Structure formats: structure tokens, C-alpha cells
């Protein structure tokens, strides 16, 4: 390791230590100036699985270091973390989510995410969504996880993402439509219902039209009713 890298490493950990005692976002400007070296340092650091036990350090790395690294370090770092035997559920969730956001660029991580399909605490949900973003070639294997996320995820954003991925995949849309219609009719959050209603405006299908009519007439939220009407008008233009 060069002297330069050693001094950067020392400085980085000094800043992280200061950040631990008083959060002030002082790590990120340093990372931006030394991306290449910091990327190498963190890549070496994550080789030690004991890092998984230091949740505070990991949270600073996730918030203030990783977002500024190039993919050549970013993706291998997250992929390495995914291979840990024991991983805190929140870190696991965040790692999968971030890899999903890199979509096809992070395909090397697919084998390590697949094993989390069906996992509890929302991890199976986010794994299915991430694999959908990454264009996993066995999409049919993701459908149970996506449907479960659509119905059961505690956070509305996760349910919304599951709906988005299901709608995006036109090949399997017919088979999942009843569940999407069910979500349009019964999800507790109007933001999810309006989003499904909006997307339905592009699906020229009698079941969809019926569901939109119902939403337009009966949904308890005015925005869902209005969006359903807009989508019905869109469908009218398609026919």
C-alpha cells in the first residue's frame, strides 16, 4: 500500500471517528476528493466479515462514502457485503435496495440476492423488486415475492414498487392482473391505489376498464376517483 493510500486511510478513519461522536457530514467531502483511494480502502475493509457487527460504522459508510464511489468499487463492495453469513436485516435491506437501483449494472450480485427471495422482515420483498430492476432472467420466479410485497409489505413505497415492477413486465401481466385489481380496490393507501389506476390507463383490457369504472365511482379517496376517470378517458382514446 502506498504512503498516499495509508495517509488517506488514516484521515478517512479519523473523520469517521469524529462523525461517530458528532454527526456533521464531514466524511463525504473527503470521499469526493479521494474517490479512487477510498474505494480501494473500503473494498479491502469489507473483506472482513466482522464489519457486519459494526452497524454505526456501516451506516456512515452507506450514507457518506458509498454514494460517491464509482461503480467499479461500489458494486463489488455491496456484492461482497451480500455474501456475509450474518447480516443485520436493515443493512441487508439497504444493500439489496441499492444494488437494485444500479439495475442491470449490478447483475453480478444476482446470485447473492436470489437466496433472499421469500425472506421475512421485508427482505424478500425488496429482493424481488431489486431482481426485477436488474432484469433477472427468471422473472416468473419473482412473481410470488412481488405479489406478496404488493399485498403485505408494511411500507406503502414497497407495495408501490412491487406494483410498478409487475405492471412493467408485460409478458406476465395477464396472470397478475387480478392481484393488481385487488390492490386497486383494497389497499389502504390512496397513493398506491392512484398509481395503479394511472398505470391502468395504458392497459386496454376489459377487466381493467371495469376496475377503473369501479374506482371512479366508489373509491373513498377523491384523487383515486379523479385519476381513474383520467385513465378511463385515456383508454377511450385507445379504442
Amino acid at each position, binding site marked *: 500500500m502506498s504512503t498516499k493510500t495509508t495517509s488517506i486511510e488514516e484521515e478517512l478513519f479519523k473523520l469517521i471517528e469524529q462523525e461517530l461522536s458528532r454527526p456533521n457530514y464531514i466524511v463525504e467531502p473527503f470521499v469526493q476528493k479521494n474517490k479512487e483511494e477510498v474505494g480501494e480502502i473500503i473494498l479491502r475493509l469489507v473483506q472482513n466479515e466482522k464489519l457486519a457487527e459494526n452497524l454505526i460504522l456501516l451506516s456512515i459508510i452507506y450514507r457518506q462514502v458509498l454514494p*460517491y*464511489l464509482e461503480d467499479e468499487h*461500489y458494486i463489488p463492495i455491496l456484492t461482497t457485503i451480500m455474501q456475509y453469513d450474518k447480516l443485520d436485516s436493515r443493512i441487508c435491506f439497504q444493500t439489496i435496495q441499492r444494488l437494485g437501483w444500479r439495475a442491470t449494472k449490478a447483475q453480478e450480485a444476482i446470485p447473492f440476492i436470489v437466496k433472499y427471495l421469500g425472506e421475512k422482515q421485508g427482505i424478500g420483498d425488496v429482493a424481488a423488486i431489486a431482481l426485477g430492476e436488474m432484469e433477472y432472467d427468471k422473472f416468473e420466479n419473482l412473481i410470488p415475492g412481488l405479489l406478496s410485497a404488493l399485498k403485505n409489505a408494511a411500507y406503502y413505497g414497497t407495495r*408501490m414498487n412491487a406494483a410498478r415492477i409487475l405492471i412493467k413486465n408485460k409478458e406476465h401481466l395477464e396472470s397478475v392482473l387480478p392481484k393488481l385489481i385487488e390492490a386497486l380496490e383494497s389497499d389502504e393507501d390512496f397513493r398506491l391505489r392512484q*398509481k395503479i389506476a394511472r398505470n391502468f390507463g395504458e392497459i386496454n383490457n376489459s377487466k381493467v376498464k371495469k376496475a377503473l369504472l369501479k374506482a371512479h365511482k366508489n373509491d373513498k379517496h*377523491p384523487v383515486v376517483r379523479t385519476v381513474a376517470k383520467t385513465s378511463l378517458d385515456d383508454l377511450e382514446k385507445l379504442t
Partner: protein
Amino acid sequence: MSDVKKKEGKNKKKLTVSPEFTLKDDFEPFSEYDSIFGRVNWDEKMKTYKVYMYDKVPDILDEEQPGYTQIDHALAIASWTVHDYFRRAFSWEKLAKPNNMMPDALPEVYKIDEKNIDKVTRTIKAVTKSFGADMVGIAPYDKKWTYTEDRVETPIEMPEGMTSVIAIGAVMDADTISTSPSMTQGFASGMGYSQMAFIVSSLAEFIRKLGYRAIPTGNDTALSIPIAVDAGLGQVGRNGLLTTRDHGARVRLCKVFTDMPLLHDEKVDFGLTDYCRKCKRCAEACENEAISFDDEPSFKTYSDSNNKGIYRWAVNVDKCYEFWTDNGGECSTCISVCPFNLRSGLRFTDPRDYWKKRLAEQ
């Protein structure tokens, strides 16, 4: 990859979103006539042609739905009052004699030279903040950001001699923004606009009293976002908005053009483009999928309302506006979910809790 190829790749000129803008040959200054609020009046191909933001409000108001009651709508609309009725705030000329005042004394031009320019610049910033601004930066005047025409196709001719633009940011209320997409959050936007009318008109009068020209503007006359970037207030995010390090995009922008000699600020780069590459929170949360999920920025555009030839993540503003019309008002969801907003703001507040908190304060 071979070492040679790797080296070539690294030497390749990096395209940047901001603070340096990457422009292609087909870039042209933008016409406000093509903005979404211009096109809604004339573009028959637009899905929301002649559909205005509050048209559907009568069908949307619902006393049973938090954030969509008559109180919420009234609050949002009322907050625009100063902006909407004090139109002289954006006058290019000195305001006329006030009704209840003596005629103004006509002062000499305040002399600015190398010795006092730093102090004058700091004074301008201090005064702007005294008028209610939270952020102030000064950029050199750059003609390319000035609209060629306004919303109704009237050509815009900036007077000769303008040398600087004072870019101003007013931070919007975190509690209110966090209720997005409710009508309640429209209060934060409206307040921002009314504040901008007060700030720019007062600052323009201050500059005029010192003997210099000042053109106060809100969203009109020129693109506020690149000007704010040039003035060092922030960078452009995936959501297409000016994003600041401490408040994210929860900032309302306005600006004053002037020929007063002033020092210019440095642009800032806090790594936002790298951040946005890896974060798709705003795209996921967008109520109408108007924000790009693309991994990389590009020159892609969606409609005439996107200024062509600029490297960034263009926003599908037609879709964005479509949601506004179905929502009975603006939406700030992409602002509220941004991690940079969360450094000083809140992710989501149920409008019921918002009102509970407000009423408990009384």
C-alpha cells in the same frame, strides 16, 4: 479490459450534469412559451391541453380525506396572495411613488470600486437575507439562460449592461412539504412564491436607490435553476430541481438581474450527480413516474417542455403536471423523499398530524 483501453476510458472527457453543464450543439436558449404552463394554453397535442391545475378541485374536495378538505385548499390558494396580486413586485422599472409617502429623494449613484466591492457584495447578501432569503449567491449574467420569449410568446430582451444575477433561495417549511402530495403542501409552495415577490421587489428597490438597475424575477424571464447553480447555491438532481446540500430541493428560487458591480460566487460540487446515479428514491416515489429511472444522465427529452441539448436526467413534465391536475394542486413528493431534504426535513407527515401539531401550538 486492457490497460490501454482502461487508460483511454479514464482520459475520456467526463460529461457532467452540474455544476458545469454539458451542452450539445443543438442547445438553444429556452422559450417560456414551451414550458408546461405555456403549452397548456396552446399545445393541442398535450394530454392536459387547457386543463388547469385547479379545474378538478370541485370534484376533489372531500371533508373526509385528510389533506383534501376545503380548509387545505383555501390555505394553499391564500398563500399565493402576495405573489398573485402584487404583480408590480416583478416590475422592471422603479416602482411609482407610494400613496402615503413624500416623493423620494434622488440620490447620487453609490460608488463601487475595487476597494469596496467586497463589502458591497456582502451588504447585498445581508440585505437580501434581511428581506427573508435563506440563501443568496451571485453569478455572472449569462444570456443563454434567459428565455427567448415569455409564456405568451412576447420576446424577452434583457437590457444591455446587465452583469450579474443575484440568485435567491427561500427554504420551504419542512412540516408542510412532508404532507405531499396533499393540498396542504401547496401552502409551502404558495408561501415560497409570495415570499419571493416580497424579497425580489424589496431587493430591487434597494439596488435602484443606490443608483443601479435591477430586474426582479420569479419563475419568469430566465431559468432559475441553472442560474442558482452558477451562483453556487446547489446542483441539479435526478428530479430536475436545484438541490442544496442542507435542504435538498426544498428551496423556492427567484433572482434579481443587475448592472451593479458585484463579486461572483464559486459554483459548488458536493457530489450530487454521483449520489443521484445510485439513488432512485425520487423516481420510485414520484406519483406519476415522471422521474427517470435511467442509470445515467443523457440528452434524452420527453417533450418540448424539456430544454434540448442539456445533459441531465430530464423529467417528464407532462406527466408531472398531469398528476397536479388530478391532485387539485402541486405535488412535492420528489422533494420530500430526497435524502438531502431529510438532513433538515421530514419524509412524510399525515395531514391529520400536521394539523394536530399546528392547532396544539395555539
